């Protein structure tokens, strides 16, 4: 690994620049990875452990055992005897600085040891219920369902509507075409934050407030998508479309059977982006959605962390759920994503 990291343009020679850039990369990776890894690890801890300070690195929990004659499980401790020998004991009760314990091998007899001589045993333990509880006890299942719905529907509509517009703008001659294209391009730089107030009023006017369709409709017509697909469609030869016209295909069929399949690579890139955008959307759903049964995961998670700000074990587990799909998409398709971003400058 070290050899791989330190490999430079001139093999065998390491100068100060190489060391510095190697240092930058390692440090950067650490700065990026540690908070995320820390949140992931913490999401698997028990509530007690999440709240303990100083924190432990690996999710652990105390070891306990069942002993005949005792109703409750007893916690397991390690007893370091004066001789230096160690022994596993189960704690029965604690009084002052003395603890009543029993030897796990001979559980019939209890005896007393000073507390300073015993330490509690801990095990690696993943608290998966952090993930399942919020789904059952809180509305997170609904949030996830809503987010999946918004993401899938909005992405399909984005692909269809934007490709249709791009088709019109790249392959037809009609009056006002350039004006329409310029109009769409000019909105490329218009941020939601500037128009969020009136856009919400439009949503209210359409009776789509607190409705998932209100979230969807406002996001599907993206100038980025139209622009990206149009650029791609310009590379499809017009001959193909005319050949299809001669072949008695209607214009709609040309779109559906010729243009869409040929745009598959560009559509895939747009689909990836759309899924990520819609999954992560925050400000717009925050404005549109008001009742918890309509919340998306991001909104629900934000509301939850405001309301139950001490339940970090749940908050973190749901945070991991929220970042998981995007992470998987990125792991599988990172090449397309980074190249798509570098190529088109969209995010």
């Amino acid at each position, binding site marked *: 690994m070290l050899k791989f990291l330190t490999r430079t343009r001139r093999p065998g020679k390491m100068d100060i620049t190489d060391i510095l850039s190697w240092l930058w990369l390692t440090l950067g990776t650490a700065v990026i990875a540690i908070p995320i890894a820390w949140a992931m690890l913490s999401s698997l801890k028990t509530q007690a452990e999440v709240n303990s300070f100083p924190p432990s690195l690996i999710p652990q929990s105390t070891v306990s055992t069942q002993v005949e004659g005792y109703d409750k499980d007893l916690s397991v401790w390690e007893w370091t005897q004066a001789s230096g020998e160690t022994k596993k004991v189960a704690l029965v009760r604690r009084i002052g600085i003395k603890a009543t314990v029993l030897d796990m091998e001979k559980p019939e007899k209890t005896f007393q040891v000073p507390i300073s001589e015993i330490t509690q045993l801990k095990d690696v333990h993943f608290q998966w219920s952090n993930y399942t509880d919020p789904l059952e006890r809180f509305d997170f299942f609904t949030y996830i369902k809503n987010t999946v719905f918004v993401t899938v529907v909005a992405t399909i509509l984005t692909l269809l509507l934007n490709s249709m517009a791009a088709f019109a703008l790249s392959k037809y001659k009609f009056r006002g075409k350039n004006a329409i294209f310029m109009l769409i391009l000019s909105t490329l*730089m218009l941020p939601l934050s500037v128009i969020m107030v009136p856009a919400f009023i439009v949503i209210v006017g359409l009776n789509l407030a607190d409705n998932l369709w209100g979230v969807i409709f406002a996001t599907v017509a993206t100038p980025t998508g139209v622009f990206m697909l149009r650029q791609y469609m310009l590379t499809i030869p017009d001959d193909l479309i005319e050949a299809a016209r001669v072949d008695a295909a209607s214009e709609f069929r040309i779109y559906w059977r010729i243009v869409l399949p040929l745009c598959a690579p560009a559509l895939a890139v747009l689909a990836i982006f759309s899924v990520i955008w819609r999954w992560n959307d925050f400000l717009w759903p925050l404005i549109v959605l008001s009742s918890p049964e309509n919340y998306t995961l991001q909104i629900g998670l934000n509301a939850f962390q405001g309301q139950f700000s001490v339940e970090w074990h749940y908050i973190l587990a749901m945070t991991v759920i929220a970042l998981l799909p995007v992470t998987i998409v990125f792991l599988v398709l990172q090449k397309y994503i*980074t190249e798509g971003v570098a190529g088109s400058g969209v995010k």
Partner: protein
Amino acid sequence: MKNLSAFLFSILDKFMRLVELPTVYVQKKIGVQRMGYLFVAPNMVLFSLFVFLPVGLAIAYAFTGGTNMLIWDRPFIGLENFSRLLNCGSYMDPASCEFDLFWTAVHNTWWYTLLNATGTLVMALITAVVLNRLSKGKALFRSIFFYPVLLSPVVVGLIWKWFLARDGLLNALVLDLGGERTIFLLEVWWSRFWVVYVSIWFHMGFFTLIILAGLQAIPRDIYEAAKVDGTSEWRQFWRITLPLLTPNLLVVAVLLLIRSVQVFDEAWVLTDGGGPGTANTFIVQFIYQTAFSSEIRLYGLASAASVLMGLALLALTLIQVWLAKKAEY
């Protein structure tokens, strides 16, 4: 599996044939070339509803008062919203303004923008240059540095909130090193620092990628010529890379400014709504609160603030377009 997809495709095909019928009728009526109108129509309808109409409405609302939502129920009050927003004893001192929160937000946004844009630009530039030096592993590190960009603002806010919490990892490290336990997000200056830090952490990868693309566009042979001349790598950076990259960097810088002015999401989550107090309240948050989360919803005032911010962004965008045009030559 293959049968299933073939089956699904045949259903889709049948459905599309149904959709096709009315379009064939329209095509007969209006001719082939005008079918472009039909294809662009759904998109234009949504654009009109959610972009063009709101732009018009934002301006219209900015000149009306009252608390009614419907535009025809709102009295025209001319420039009153603007004059109230801009009514200040001294623009340097938010407390002297009629809407002190707005001016606090403006001040906060100004400083945030300055620090965030500078910080991100420097970090992204260094990272891009370092990545560009790599012969192997470039794709791997590029992906690592880009990954945070794909996270949601809520996720980023929560991850860092946890990291910086009273019982968080950072405090554990600080204590270990003999420092004092600090509740970072409740101290004015610390919280401001961390908002900028988290923003850089969040968005740096995006700008790294764009700068890296610019770096890769610099022809290799220029460097090779420099190497033959015995130019050191540092000198190469200052004398070749930076001058050739400057047009690109300017475009990136303005883009960064545009993005920074709109700061809201992750800062809002991280600081529990702009706290402590109003230390991290930004303009977008002011607009959001004025229009949506205050007792009396002041759409007119919020719109006026939006229009002011929109004008600032428009100016930046025009500069960017101008710079981008210049960079092409």
